[in-house]
């Protein structure tokens, strides 16, 4: 039996990016908040220590900071005719754990989605007709870009994003992204200083008439004091960014932007090494009473609360809802049920360019220092004569030259021996790549549910992921890869090598930790799990924050929008929900 604790106003499950934002906002509103985090406490000086953070083996290869599969794994299969098996090690994506969540070891590419993304279904239907999206299950978000603009702005200024506006109040800005929707003000910091490879990429792209611009980066181009009064340092381009914590206070994360203020508030408590097992519902099943969690010594506790915020990362949010019986689990046969619906990912491809006479110093890099072009992203281009919808950002963002992982050699090179060694040495400094990050559009057969066979260490079913790239997305990716070849040729390398995207999705090689959907937002409770304020349709004192809310995933990294949704939900809670706690903010 769980031991019962004194109640709190709010219990937050997970203290990563979204949990920290919500905790800060709701403690500011005077509420008593506890965040329960299954991983350890982590801070920069101790855990991202400048004396030994630069350790590729430990952090990038053995994945020291990530969620260990022994704690929680997931099963996967490509379609319902297969038997799902556990990902015994995480590979394709790497969920976070511990205070700061995946925000500790992200790259920091920080995007806004477009109005045409928020209205994917109605926009595409209107422009190309219903038949074009008949094989897909794309939906509208229930919010517009205009409603999200100020929330984006707050997240960007919280982080100190380095970038260049492309559209200020409707005026296209030279050097920014001309395809973005209007923003009210520029990024808080100027773009990062470019390294050699993205500079060459941008020249080549421009020579073909494209519009490259500096990737908006949560690695700081200058020192910065954010609106909470927290000081951050200038990025040193250390090259140990993605998969690592930043020892320089230069990468935006909960640690560098929120916790120094949040942790001093007496109406906030963080409980670490404590894993939430479920949200407890009352007898009606329509109100949450709090959560049950288990601490590191195996003791179970019941934490009563007036409201529960799931901020556990999208995939874990979906599983916790299923385990807690909040809403109905999606059934791909009937198309009914909303929890687990519209799981989407990212459709990426790459290309490597080998040169003879150039030195790119690949180790001089940060997670997000680079150039992007959106000419072929989303619906920035006319799909009228094409056989797909969606698109991809093309990114030249060399993140590192860490040699266990980065050792480019041309195809046909032996994998060992003296010939291998010579090729490794010859190409290490003189090779770079760029990639397409493509949209992943919802399809009826791609979804999440609970596995019938495999259990976690408490005997509860693992999350089961059924996913493959929809044909539409594969066609999209190949078309964008053709465009990448044109850019590669303009760069005149000695040789280029394509890495095209084909079926089936594999759980083994790393692709991206951009898992979306499973508890999607929308205007209709039949096809969405949460309303436009991320409030559960079924249990109104539960809010579900994260990329779980995305009805489908555009060709951009998720966290700019995840952070904005956190502010958007916080505003709705502060300004509307607290006036009438327990009531639905949108009538079903």
């Amino acid at each position, binding site marked *: 039996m769980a031991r019962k604790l004194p109640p709190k106003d709010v219990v937050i499950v997970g203290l990563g990016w979204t949990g920290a934002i919500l905790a800060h906002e709701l403690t500011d509103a*005077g509420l008593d908040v506890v965040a329960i985090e299954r991983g350890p406490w982590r801070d920069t000086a*101790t855990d991202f220590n400048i004396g030994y953070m630069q350790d590729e083996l430990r952090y990038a290869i053995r994945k020291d900071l990530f969620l260990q599969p022994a704690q929680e794994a997931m099963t996967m299969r490509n379609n319902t005719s297969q038997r799902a098996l556990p990902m015994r090690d995480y590979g394709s994506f790497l969920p976070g754990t511990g205070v700061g969540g995946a925000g500790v070891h992200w790259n920091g590419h920080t995007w806004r989605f477009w109005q045409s993304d928020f209205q994917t279904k109605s926009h595409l239907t209107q422009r190309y007709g219903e038949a074009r999206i008949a094989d897909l299950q794309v939906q509208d978000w229930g919010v517009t870009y205009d409603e999200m603009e100020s929330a984006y702005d707050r997240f960007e200024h919280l982080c100190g994003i380095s970038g260049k506006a492309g559209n200020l109040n409707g005026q296209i800005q030279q050097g920014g992204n001309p395809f973005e929707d209007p923003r009210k003000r520029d990024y808080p910091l100027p773009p990062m200083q470019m390294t050699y490879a993205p500079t060459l990429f941008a020249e080549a792209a421009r020579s073909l008439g494209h519009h490259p611009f500096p990737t908006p980066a949560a690695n700081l181009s200058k020192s910065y004091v954010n609106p909470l009064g927290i000081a951050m340092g200038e990025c040193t381009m250390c090259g140990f960014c993605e998969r690592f914590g930043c020892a320089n206070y230069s990468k935006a994360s909960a640690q560098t932007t929120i916790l120094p203020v949040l942790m001093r508030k*007496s109406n906030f408590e963080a409980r670490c090494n404590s894993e939430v097992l479920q949200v407890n519902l009352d007898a009606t099943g329509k109100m949450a009473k709090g959560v049950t969690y288990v601490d590191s010594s195996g003791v179970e506790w019941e934490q009563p609360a007036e409201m529960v915020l799931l901020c556990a990362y999208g995939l874990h949010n979906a599983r916790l809802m299923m385990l807690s019986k909040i809403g109905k689990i999606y059934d791909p046969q009937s198309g009914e049920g909303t929890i687990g619906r519209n799981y989407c990912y990212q459709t990426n491809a790459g290309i490597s360019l080998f040169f003879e006479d150039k030195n790119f110093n690949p*180790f001089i890099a940060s997670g997000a220092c680079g150039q992007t072009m959106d000419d072929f992203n989303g619906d920035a281009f006319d799909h009228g004569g094409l056989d797909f919808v969606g698109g991809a950002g093309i990114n030249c963002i060399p993140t590192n030259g860490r040699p266990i992982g980065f050792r480019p050699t041309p195809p046909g090179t032996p994998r060992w021996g003296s010939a291998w060694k010579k090729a490794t040495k010859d190409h290490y400094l003189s090779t770079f790549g760029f990639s397409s990050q493509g949209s992943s559009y919802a399809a009826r057969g791609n979804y999440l549910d609970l596995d019938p066979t495999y259990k976690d260490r408490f005997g509860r079913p693992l999350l089961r992921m059924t996913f493959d790239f929809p044909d539409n997305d594969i066609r999209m990716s190949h078309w964008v890869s053709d465009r990448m070849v044109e850019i590669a040729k303009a760069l005149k390398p000695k040789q280029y090598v394509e890495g095209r995207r084909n079926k089936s999705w594999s759980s083994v090689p790393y692709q991206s930790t951009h898992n979306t959907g499973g508890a999607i937002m929308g205007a209709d409770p039949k096809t969405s799990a949460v309303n436009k304020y991320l409030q559960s349709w079924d249990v109104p004192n539960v809010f579900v924050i994260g990329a779980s809310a995305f009805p489908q995933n555009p060709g951009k990294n998720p966290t700019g929008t995840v952070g904005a949704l956190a502010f958007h939900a916080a505003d709705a809670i502060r300004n509307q929900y607290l006036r009438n706690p327990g009531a639905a903010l949108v009538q079903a």
Partner: protein
Amino acid sequence: MSDFPRLASTRRQFLTSAAALSFVTIASRTYAQSISGNLPWHPFAGEPPQPSLAGWYFFKPDEARAIEAIVDRLIPADELSAGGKEAGCAAFIDRQLAGTYGDSSRLYMQGPFMKGTPTQGYQSNATPAMRYRAGLAAIDAFLRKSKNHGFAELNTQEQDAFLKELEGGKVDLGSIDGKALFNLILQNTMEGFFADPIYGGNRNMVSWKMIGFPGAHYDYRDHVGKHNQPYPKGPISIAGSPDWSHKS
């Protein structure tokens, strides 16, 4: 430090009376870590890596001899660098197998274990430590039968020829998948050759010097704008640089 705003009137109706109790110290604090009111920080709380010591931790003497010979063919000594043995790749693998990598204790190791599709990844219950132990024994048995010698006693041509066959999946090691075994050894050898020397491989930063990776440098601001120009400084490791230690 309670400078948060006064409770809004809306909050009063929202709160249950019991919420006032929430600052009372609760028993959970002795189990899970509860943090409130400050940023906790303790000196020396970090977990620096443990430098690798001499000796074998996992391999038995025969295995150690075989694996040293293997890594020395995968990464042969030549004009570009020292070989895998001198670089410490075997010692590196030994330490890895003796730790959490070797026993897969961080992975999901609950059954049932079933054969899956390639997209589902590695599905066996055999840990790296088990695979090396059984794999090296199988290689040894195979070679003693066909060549009358263990791997370490073959000449380098014979060694290379055998490794090529193993890589190509042409060596019948019974129940052991030779190709997968080769891939595992190759992967770990490369990890050892290119990892920070603190783990026992990449001695004297040989691989980093060879390719021009500066290692744990951590601040490149002065070189970002110097496009296409070689980086002037040599590598350093987490443990520092040999130039830093006193010479006796």
